[in-house]
């Protein structure tokens, strides 16, 4: 039974997915069909073959520049800032009313917070472990 469950699950659920795909293409215009197909396939390709390799490459470059765990003080605020930029691109990149400015201010605050944390931790670590 344990081995059959996955097969049964596929037989039950893949047809449900297929039904939904058939319906969405059936009720939409031909032009919309192309759009939906492009977005469905494009979403995976852009994430798996573009976004992920890109941030992995940036991460590798950062780890090359800053050795060891100190890289976190650089890459974490950078990642948070980039994430906000991508998720809110529809307002940051496309609307003039202060969104880009607020994103920059929050980015600056993230890096400042990271720098202060780095300083505080280095200070508290110094008496016990000099030249960490």
């Amino acid at each position, binding site marked *: 039974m344990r081995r059959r469950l996955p097969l049964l699950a596929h037989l039950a659920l893949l047809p449900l997915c297929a039904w*939904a795909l058939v319906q969405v293409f059936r*009720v939409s215009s031909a032009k919309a069909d192309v759009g939906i197909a492009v977005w469905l396939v494009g979403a995976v390709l852009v994430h798996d073959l573009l976004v992920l390799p890109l941030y992995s490459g940036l991460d590798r470059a950062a780890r090359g520049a800053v050795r060891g765990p100190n890289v976190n003080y650089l890459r974490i605020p950078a990642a948070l800032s980039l994430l906000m930029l991508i998720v809110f691109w529809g307002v940051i990149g496309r609307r003039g009313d202060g969104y880009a400015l607020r994103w920059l201010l929050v980015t600056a605050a993230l890096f400042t917070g990271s720098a202060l944390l780095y300083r505080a931790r280095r200070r508290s670590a110094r008496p016990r472990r000099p030249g960490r």
Partner: protein
Amino acid sequence: MTAPPGPFRPQFWRSPLRGPWLTSAVGTALLVLVAIVAVTGFLSHAAYEPDLRGNAIVPAAADLPITFGWPTSPSWLYALNQSLHVNVGLAAVPFLLAKLWSVIPRLFAWPPVSSLAQALERAGIALLVASAVFQFATGIANVQHWYAFHFNFVVAHYYGGVVFVGALVLHVLVKLPVIVRAYRRHGWLRPLRADLAHTRPEPADPHGGLAPEAPDPPTLSRRGLFAFVGGASLLLLAANAGESIGGPVRRLAFLAPRREDFPVNKTAAAARVTPAMVGRAYRLRLSDGARVTELSRDELLAMPQHTARLPIACVEGWTTTQTWSGVRLSLLAEAAGVAGAGSAFVRSLQPAGVLSKASLSGDAIAAGDALLALRVNGHDLALDHGFPARIIVPGLPGVHNTKWVASIEFGPPA
């Protein structure tokens, strides 16, 4: 068959944190979040009451036969539903990205297909990842009014949701033994106790291929990774949630698409409603399906007025609560000669558009605070807010509170 060089070889993947436990832990957190997003998504579909005349955006004949009467109490029900859908959806983004990162070596598994069962599983995964990224991308673009796609958002996002839920349930069922094994082996949260100095790679798993064969030294502990992902979630939440809470918090939502206190999604100009259409000649047409009663705005103002503090809750997640006053819908039904009406088909002066019409259920008409609002916060409605008269019903999706009401056709008592 030897794997080609690069990502197809296991040695290529060097993160010391990847492994079945990490994927299970990130996946469990993500599952809780997307379950909330999916349930509220389908509830929102039901809240539009697509079985009533003119309400269906997804054609009824091509829809799942799941509809029910959406309650009008509490009045913030739809506001809560959509706040959860949009904000929990945003909070899930970092977990989705982390989950996809944790399993990326599997994309390059070699050989690509080893058996029929594995080919089926990969097809399911392809549907899952495609629909997941599709749902998040279209949903987020839509709440930001970024119509980068040339298809009907509602239709595509609805069926995309069906594909996503189907593929997700399938994935959880298929992976359940792997998840159970990972938790049995490492405990629910035990790997989070290790600080960086004690962070070790998970033992190599020849079948799963997630734990690295040649790991780099760690630069982040597992709890560090969770703090990073969870922190990213909270940051996205902080950037947006104020538009769903309202009040003074709204100004703190630094990236929310709707930061004004009383937002307007569709202006009169965009809806092509002109001042001439709402001038002295304006008459509200009430009917029982045959007989038409016409009322001027002054005649409406002369009827008994009721005041209620009610939210407008947009499908996009923003909410605003205002004090509305006008004529109870139940009173208008009586005026049309249909006391206790079972339905109301409302048309807007807006000449075109899917949302230029909406049907209300008998329960909605009977709700004590369901109004044809003429005034808001002690002033006449502004043209952009629906002057001369708009519907406001507790607990319904924002767009069913039709603006610039031209006519209401009441159906017989149910």
